């Protein structure tokens, strides 16, 4: 088989297929849908996984996050049957210092108190969340100081009435002024604004905002933890439709930064153990971004396997369609096969001719499928606002499989054509 033969065989294959355009296109549809769905589904899956993993990574893969959670209602009703509506739960300063002192591999521990309040400057009145934390908060969260400074160690030590605003809040409270050195009123007291902070991104605020859905995410006021504890007290009284409820929570969140990613998984167990011993109720939750990340990857793998199976099935169905048509074609062109054999074609030549036709069909379907397949994710992104990623390897795999299917399902019809006896074939009507 030299190149002239191959080229003329391919030309001939295309010509023969063009003789029955509709039939060829319908046959290709199976492969087109198969290839297109492989690429599109993988692109959507890949995009979703990427977003999930990015979100998790933003939490910091070397961090462990603890959050106070109100224990289930029925449990504390029993506990406080005589104590009225006062409940006390959650993480404590003791937890924080114990973790720092006794868990190996801990770099820093960042506690937070989060209090919902209202902030006022002149006539501007905005609901906010007050976050009492330590001076190294920006380094750990990746937030950026865009004006003034962040809280300092002396602020913390001397319980200064100072605060730092998140950029969104700064704009709402001070639409026409520079907020620095102004005093804003939060709750009952006044605090001097010393800086403005730009959050790294929205995802970063999700853990801080906790379960307070419906709250603006960017309305944060940062102040020294000591100040927040003194000014707002440990007990927060909530009035809900006539009844009053007092909650005592020392710390709402503790972020533990490990020296290395590897230390996370061992520390995870130790912290779990420690908290279990110190807390009677499950009044906290533990988020290990690294574990979430590993889970997300596992889920993604499963997803890929499922997608792969669906795609394989649809490609096999397409392949069977091709085989069906090729068997019909061989019967229809028996006379042609006899003529070619009489004119010097070997069995091999006949096999090649029909195999080339099947491969042209499936590769043709593959090419169209790839083109449609890389267009579909674009529309999905545009209309459904989902991130999609078309990877090179998904295109390669889809295309390769379609070619492989063509050969696999083409061999039988082609061999059948080649095994015809020349005389019988010539006599065929």
């Amino acid at each position, binding site marked *: *088989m030299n190149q002239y033969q191959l080229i*003329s065989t391919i030309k001939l294959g295309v010509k023969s297929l063009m003789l029955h355009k509709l039939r060829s296109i319908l046959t290709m549809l199976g492969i087109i849908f198969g290839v297109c769905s492989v690429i599109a589904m993988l692109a959507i899956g890949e995009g979703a996984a990427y977003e999930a993993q990015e979100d998790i990574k933003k939490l910091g893969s070397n961090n462990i996050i603890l959050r106070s959670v109100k224990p289930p209602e029925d449990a504390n009703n029993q506990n406080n049957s005589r104590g009225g509506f006062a409940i006390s739960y959650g993480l404590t300063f003791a937890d924080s210092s114990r973790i720092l002192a006794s868990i190996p591999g801990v770099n820093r521990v960042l506690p937070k108190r989060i209090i919902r309040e209202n902030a006022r400057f002149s006539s501007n009145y905005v609901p906010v969340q007050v976050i009492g934390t330590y001076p190294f908060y920006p380094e750990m969260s990746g937030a950026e100081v865009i004006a003034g400074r962040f809280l300092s160690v002396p602020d913390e030590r001397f319980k200064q009435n100072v605060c730092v605003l998140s950029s969104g809040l700064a704009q709402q409270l001070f639409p026409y002024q520079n907020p620095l050195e102004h005093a804003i009123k939060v709750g009952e007291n006044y605090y001097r604004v010393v800086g403005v902070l730009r959050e790294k991104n929205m995802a970063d605020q999700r853990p801080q905002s906790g379960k307070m859905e419906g709250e603006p995410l960017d309305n944060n006021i940062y102040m020294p933890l000591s100040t927040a504890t003194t000014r707002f007290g440990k007990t927060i009284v909530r009035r809900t439709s006539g009844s009053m409820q007092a909650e005592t929570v020392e710390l709402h969140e503790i972020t533990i930064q490990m020296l290395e990613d590897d230390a996370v998984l061992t520390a995870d167990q130790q912290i779990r153990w420690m908290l279990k011993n110190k807390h009677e109720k499950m009044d906290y939750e533990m988020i290990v971004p690294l574990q979430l990340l590993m889970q997300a990857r596992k889920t993604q793998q499963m997803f890929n396997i499922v997608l792969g199976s669906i795609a394989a099935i649809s490609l096999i169905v397409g392949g069977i369609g091709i085989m069906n048509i090729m068997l019909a074609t061989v019967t229809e062109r028996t006379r042609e096969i006899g003529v070619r054999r009489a004119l*010097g074609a070997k*069995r091999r030549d006949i096999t090649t001719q029909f195999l080339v036709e099947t491969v042209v069909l499936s590769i043709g379907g593959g090419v169209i499928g790839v083109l449609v397949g890389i267009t579909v994710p674009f529309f999905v992104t545009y209309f459904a606002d989902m991130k999609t990623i078309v990877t090179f390897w998904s295109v390669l795999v889809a295309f390769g499989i379609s070619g492989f299917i063509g050969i696999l399902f083409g061999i039988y019809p082609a061999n059948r054509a080649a095994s015809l006896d020349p005389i019988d074939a010539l006599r065929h009507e």
Partner: protein
Amino acid sequence: MHALRGVDLQIAEGSYVAIMGPSGSGKSTMLNILGCLDRPTEGQYFLGGDDVAQMEDDILSNVRGKRIGFIFQSYNLIPQLTVIENIQVPLIYQSYDLKEYMGRAIELARMVGLEERLDHRPNQLSGGQQQRVAIARSLINDPLMILADEPTGNLDSKTGLEVLDLIDKLNADGKTIVLVTHDPKVGDRAQRVIHMKDGKIDRDITNR
């Protein structure tokens, strides 16, 4: 039950042989063996000095492609190919460069009077024209022998005569011709007429 029995036949190079006989007498079977499409269950067949009777399938394909030109009753052109492409088909299986042989293919098309219709497809041609394409195709590989099974069977008498004239001309140029026919007038053109009956040679007459 054998289609042919006890046939002993020699065909000289450059001769023009007609095979005649009633239907079912084994004419086509004989031609198929001569054309290496079929192998005799017993006996030998020497083509140009080689015993081809027991050759392998691939080698037989080669022998057909190189040494034999076929002309069929029903033309048997390949419908999806043009006139010139049909003429070139045997070249493909000998791995010849089509460009190199393009001149020869056009020359043959001219010889059979179809140089104006190189890009036509078989369904755009009359029966006589199709048969002439088939003749050009049978010649492209310069075979030793042309085998024609009732080449005029599907044609009217005038067109049939044109085709027979062409075949006469090939013989005049030195090609060996073996032709199956029912028409005694066609047989008269040949140098030798072999009459068959029940798979045997009944009479073997040399004209002139």
